[in-house]
């Protein structure tokens, strides 16, 4: 099968420097994202999961070049974003957008909903006043908000409605690639379901490609076609959603899935408990970065960093033992 690639990260690294030590003379780099390779296919929803601090939000921002990578390149429709001029970057930006977690924090409280949506057109210098007005109303229809919202302010809306405004803003310029960064995480479950349904409807209507970043594994399972699992700045596994959730290959993915709360009190509980905490991004261990917490660790894991290699069922896994088939079989129901 061949897939059309929308966006591709090649060896993308982001180091955030902080000053440490006496008089802050020593500079220490936190490798938030470290040599990341990732391809997002046209029309798909790629879920990106991992625990706090693993670099998933940084990855989303790097793909949109909202932050500059320290190394590596990002290709959008085949063109290297890191080499575009400011003007070219701006026109590329129209095709890629982001929806944030907190719809209240990302809306200006003094700006009406109409102005907030119209801002996208103004910044990019598109349309005259009348056409912008018309487009704003169309966007409100699209996200199923009443047209009367146009003259109202963010505080007059519930969290779910504000997230609809956030979506309208992101989609105003008709992008084809949208990063949803914890887009439903702040919402109550009943409202979360409304927004998930809306995102799926819009994807079908507008042929959107999503990178869906979330810590909520159940939501990711529901919405994604493929899922990438991130650990300490790296992708450790990418697979089709059903393969990942039924046959997770990486020990970290296995631990993550086994920690999901059960959906019924009578469901058996099988934990693959993780010991210890995430190592610091300031001091990434040599070898496999999961080795310090892996229940199946071997000596080689502490020395050699496993590459993200293809497996027989078309997924990619970064694990020595998964690669040579010596990992104990995984089952949630054994």
């Amino acid at each position, binding site marked *: 099968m061949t897939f059309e690639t929308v966006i591709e990260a090649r060896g993308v690294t982001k180091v955030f420097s902080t000053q440490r030590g006496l008089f802050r003379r020593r500079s220490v780099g936190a490798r938030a994202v470290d040599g990341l390779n990732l391809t997002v296919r046209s029309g798909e929803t790629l879920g990106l999961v991992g625990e706090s601090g693993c670099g998933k939000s940084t990855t989303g921002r790097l793909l949109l070049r909202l932050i500059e990578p320290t190394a590596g390149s990002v290709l959008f429709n085949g063109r290297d974003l890191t080499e575009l001029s400011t003007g070219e970057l701006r026109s590329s930006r129209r095709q890629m957008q982001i929806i944030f977690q907190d719809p209240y924090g990302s809306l200006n409280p003094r700006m009406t909903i109409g102005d907030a949506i119209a801002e996208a057109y103004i910044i990019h210098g598109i349309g005259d006043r009348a056409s912008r007005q018309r487009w704003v109303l169309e966007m409100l229809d699209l996200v199923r908000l009443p047209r009367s919202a146009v003259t109202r302010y963010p505080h007059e809306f519930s969290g779910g409605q504000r997230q609809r405004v956030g979506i309208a803003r992101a989609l105003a310029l008709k992008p084809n690639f949208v990063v949803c960064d914890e887009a439903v995480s702040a919402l109550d479950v009943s409202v979360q379901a409304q927004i998930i349904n809306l995102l799926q409807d819009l994807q079908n209507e507008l042929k959107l490609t999503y990178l869906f970043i979330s810590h909520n594994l159940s939501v990711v399972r529901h919405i994604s076609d493929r899922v990438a699992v991130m650990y300490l700045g790296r992708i450790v596994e990418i697979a089709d959603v059903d393969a990942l959730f039924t046959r997770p290959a990486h020990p970290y993915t296995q631990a993550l899935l086994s920690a999901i709360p059960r959906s019924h*009190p009578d469901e058996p509980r099988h934990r693959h408990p*993780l010991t210890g905490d995430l190592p610091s991004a300031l001091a990434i261990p040599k070898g496999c970065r999961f080795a310090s917490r892996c229940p199946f660790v071997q000596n080689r894991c502490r020395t050699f960093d496993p590459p993200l290699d293809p497996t027989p069922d078309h997924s990619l896994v970064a694990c020595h033992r998964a690669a040579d088939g010596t990992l104990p079989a995984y089952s949630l129901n054994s």
Partner: protein
Amino acid sequence: MARPILEVKGLTTTLAGGTITILEDVSFGLQPGEVLGVVGESGSGKSMLALSVMGLLPKAVRRTAGRIVLDGEDLAALSPDRWRERRGSDLAMIFQEPMTALNPVMRVGDQVAEVLRRQGIPAKKARQETINLFRKVEIPSPEQRVRGYPHELSGGMRQRVMIAIALAANPKVLIADEPTTALDVTVQAQILDLLRKLQKERGLSLVFITHDLGVIAEIADRVLVLYAGRVAEIAPVRKIFDNPQHPYTRALLASIPEIDRPRGRLVTIEGAVPSIGAMPKGCRYASRCPFRRDICEQESPRLGLVSSDQAAACVQPFGFEKPQEEALA
């Protein structure tokens, strides 16, 4: 059933001099050694319920009616001083964000020892007991960790310190308000395992507040569903999951994306929780309920028994007349 260790009867709290009702007529009992899960969405009043029981309501909020009976004694009738004493010894609470609940400039061990010292335990013994408690809550190398400060610990470790502080008082009732919400899923699993273990070992009576029905499935014996400040339903956890009687409970369960359910469209609850201060006259869920009748908008349904251990506040709970499944799908 044994006499409940904690009983809340007709609890009503109001804001702004009584014009806005937050909690209305909330009643439940907690049996000794039981885990009661309290589930609700934001604005349901679940944190307000915890603070009411603790006697820690913010100044603007007043309890206007209701009794809070701990082990036979009505806390609400006590003087604030006496309530504080009970809070120090028989009632303990852990919060969502341990970083803000811990003193940032005090060694974590001292924060546990402080509770022990207040019980009259001498300093040296309190230090030793603190290390034991750290071991109990599975903090690795407790001898060293007692000397650390909150910022040196991870979120999961901080929550373990909070649990150690709560256990130090040897409380009869522990109230946990979203204790795992700020944690990653793997750490959440560890903390839930720990709480379950401690609860069994010590026969703790636990009120566990959460918005997450998955967490409820993990830990609760019985479940109280709050909606907009009122009890919608209360029942044993299996009945909540298998045979929910209130339309809200049912919709809530259906709206969660599940790991093992076919991935179609999610069931949604249209609209939003009515805002505080604009509560409808009748059933507070009526505007979103697909089974709404005229009467629902007229009067607020009382919590009525559906079976011996299940109650729902609905004029027509599912037990009496089976609803059409399509209406929810």
